[in-house]
């Protein structure tokens, strides 16, 4: 089921109480996310009841048909947010589309960056950045990698 939310709804996003949150920043014109389709999809299945996952669409040229089409192509059951005024971009400053952030229930960023490093290794995943960060969070451990370098499309920040 796809649910659309508008970014900027005060205070930031409606979040189920007590759940950490993952935002993944995407643009429909950027295919890089397909490198993470399986990894991220498996996290949605594994942690979907314990983590609040959302896509943040960041390109002003995106239309709803393209956004829904991309989610269907990815095969993810996830809600999405349209960040029309770049409020979430300016709040979290992802470097490229496909970057994501892991937020504590209190809204603190504990991980930012790539889902994994597969685009750097011809598909082989050597670092499960986001999955490891989620596991560390639930185990109460320090997050082992807090910033994972990713490959994606450059985000066009408004000046």
């Amino acid at each position, binding site marked *: 089921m796809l649910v659309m939310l508008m970014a900027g709804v005060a205070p930031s996003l409606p979040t189920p109480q007590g759940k950490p949150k993952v935002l993944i920043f995407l643009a429909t014109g950027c*295919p890089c996310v*397909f490198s993470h389709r399986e990894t991220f999809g498996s996290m949605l299945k594994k942690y979907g009841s314990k983590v609040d996952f959302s896509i943040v669409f960041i390109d002003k040229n995106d239309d709803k048909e393209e956004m829904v089409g991309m989610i269907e*192509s990815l095969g993810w059951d996830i809600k999405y947010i349209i960040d029309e005024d770049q409020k979430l971009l300016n709040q979290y400053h992802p470097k490229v589309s496909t970057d994501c952030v892991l937020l504590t229930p209190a809204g603190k960023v504990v991980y930012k960056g790539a889902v994994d490093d597969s*685009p750097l290794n*011809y598909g082989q995943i050597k670092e499960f950045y986001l999955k490891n960060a989620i596991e560390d969070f639930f185990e109460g451990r320090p997050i082992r990698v807090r910033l994972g370098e990713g*490959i994606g*499309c*450059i985000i066009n920040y408004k000046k």
Partner: protein
Amino acid sequence: MKNIALSATLLFIAFLFACTAPEPENTPVHDPMDYEKVLGAPEAVVETEDFPENTISGPLAYAPDVPKLNTGDVVHVRIDVQHKLIEIKEGVKFWAWPFGDDVPGPVLRVKVGQRVIFKMANRSMETIEFSPPMPHSIDFHAALVSPSDKYRSVPPGQTITFEWVANYPGVFMYHCGTTSILQHMVYGMVGMTIVEPKDGFPGEVDREIALIQNEYYLKEKEDGTYMVDFDAARKKQPMFVAFNGKPAQYVQNPIKVKAGERIRLYLLNVGPNDQSSFHIVGTLFDKVWWDGNPVNEMRGMQTVLLGASSGAIVEFTLPEPGTYPFVDHEFADVEAGAVGLFIAE
């Protein structure tokens, strides 16, 4: 009676001699591929530079034209990547990611033994308002190098330089190797490399033509423009199949040749998904060099079957004046645009 006995004896002796005569020594078979190959190359360099005005330079031309060889042992080649709105058919425009200025990218021509100093800038940030800039790369099938070094993804705004030596003659593909590779290829990041044998292709021809077959997976948007349909690409359901980037372009604008002249056709199916059964109505291929290597010669063929990324060189003549259709003989592809005409005058 004596004569008969003598003849029989002589015949017996001759037979014995024949049976015991030493066999002639084996003549060594010349292997045309038995020469030293150059493996590997210095590490690639990624850096920032001021981009030149032109996106390509070197022995390059857009198909059907075939570029001339550069002389010398070292060849400098530049093919930049950009994001560009291209029109593949009247009214069908989409934002492609071409090598150089068109889809497919330019044909590169080198010969065995030449060292290619290759440079590629990722200019995708120049159109950031319309198309998200992203990493790109290039994978030369003609090269023997480490892909994790030379074919690495180059961030927008940066330039990669690396070398490779042409070791094998043939018709080879190049394409973007950045994930999702399928998506980068359906956005048009494909092209052809021709590698001549050290002493040139054997035999004389009157005309050279390059044909590259590719598929387009598009869908129309509400505003009448088009966008890549990744689902269709994954399901192998192309909207168009084209020779040299534009479906059925050579039906309205046929390729003109002379009846009786010998034509060498450089063929490549860049896919990314489907095979091509290339056929010309009204003639046979006198010679077919599988993957473009003269060692792999076949004769008198009607159709050349090319899997995705396979190439061939075919030589033929059109026997008399007339119109000769060329097709991908998988006729669903003809309906999608894989058809053209030679006019022999």
